[in-house]
């Protein structure tokens, strides 16, 4: 991805091009978009190319995993970007609180994290 690339998912993307929170996702010619780094499109077999995506996403579902192999509770969700790409995500913030539907996705160490989107005052 270069700074000259446009945000093609219809969200407009972050205003600040230096913003490290923007995401690089993959998409085929049939507009099937993915967070996961597939070799080729799992839906149509097409070639996948990277594109820059806004980190804004909708939380489709979430849960607090209270019985986990690590013994520590954590919040897990499934989020969908405007391009239709979906990912599992660790929800950051208070476990008991409903995280709402609008979240911002960040990537760290190969995992995606979701935090409630801050609305402007």
């Amino acid at each position: 991805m270069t700074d000259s690339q446009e945000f093609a998912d219809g969200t407009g993307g972050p205003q600040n091009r230096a913003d490290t929170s923007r995401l690089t996702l993959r998409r085929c010619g049939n507009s099937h978009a993915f967070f996961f780094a597939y070799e080729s499109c799992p839906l149509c077999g097409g070639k996948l190319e990277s594109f820059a995506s806004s980190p804004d996403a909708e939380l489709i579902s979430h849960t607090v995993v209270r019985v986990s192999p690590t013994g520590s509770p954590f919040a897990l969700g499934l989020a969908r970007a405007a391009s239709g790409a979906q990912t599992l995500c660790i929800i950051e913030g208070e476990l008991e609180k409903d995280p709402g539907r609008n979240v911002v996705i960040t990537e760290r160490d190969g995992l995606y994290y979701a935090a409630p989107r801050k609305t402007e005052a």
Partner: protein
Amino acid sequence: MNRIKIKSSCLTRIGRRDEDLVTLFLEALRGVLRGTDPGRVADVYVASYAPSELCGLPRPLESVRQAIHGEFPGLRAAFRGIYKTGGDALFNALEDIDRRSPRDSREVVVVGAEKMTHLPPAQVAGFLSQRENPHDRSYGATLPALGALVTRSYMSAYDIPERALHQVAVKNHEHGSKNPNAHFRKTVTLEEVASSPLVCDPLRRLHCAPTSDGAAAVLLSRAEGAVWYRGWGKGTDVPLFQERRDISRFAATAQAAARAFDRAAASPRDMDLVEIHDAFTSFELINLEEMGFFPMGSAWRELEEGGLRINTSLAVNPSGGMKAKGHPIGCTGVSASVEIHEQLTGGAGERQHRGARLGAIQSAGGVSNESYVFVIDAVS
């Protein structure tokens, strides 16, 4: 002669068992081969979800084969597997038999077993997730965690009240209380379910099937048997859970049911009873709807009105289901055939469904990554 029949079936007691995995396999084999000639068995299809991880068997199929040969020296069959689920093993057995000559009178055993209760539940959840997709595992997404994501999405999409999840548990425990082989033979109240601890919200402990030990087997024959597999079908979903367009639906079950009912030339409304995948109580409702028994989001209303119980127009999970009968994973898909066999031959005792003539089974792997549906009919 064309029909593939169940000649005999056996379910061991399900629950916390002291015996090891191989001994459980043998117990089911002993039951299903009683009074028959083991020399007529051509193939043994073996199912167990995680025998290496849970029981430390480095070569589980070989361990089972050696033990069976030790006990049944006359059984010189080919061993096939190990399949992860009983439904998978049964489906493959039926497909293979169906390809043979109708005059081939050799018999086939399908046997499934699991040993799980010797380990703490959180450790079992960790081992089971190892058998699932490593991508999901990297997020700590256990099966209950993914099940909870499905459940919340389903409840939201169709405005399902939490009470509906409780009612499935109450019904299945009521059925399980009549099953001498069930893991749980005690009834539970709505209040007990509602106040049980959260596992992965909205799923509570009493919404979830337990980890169990046990085994089941069926002996398939073209020549003898009082019931036959009239149809069967398999469906699959996208490999990664996160790529599903609608996680409130089980596309694999819909595909499997359409294929099985088409092959059987039957429809859901012809069924008297169904054994269905209820690893989580919400899954029973979703699977019933995906099979075509009810429109999406409406099965709970039938339950609310007193239906889905033994001796109503459709008995759902008369065995107690995975919820109360228990869920030794590799055994479960086979045990459903045992239940339908007993029901259609009038051998279900206290939980006998009056007039049971035609039954269906739905069995799944993972979070409905793959699903199997079977239609079983009484031989006229």
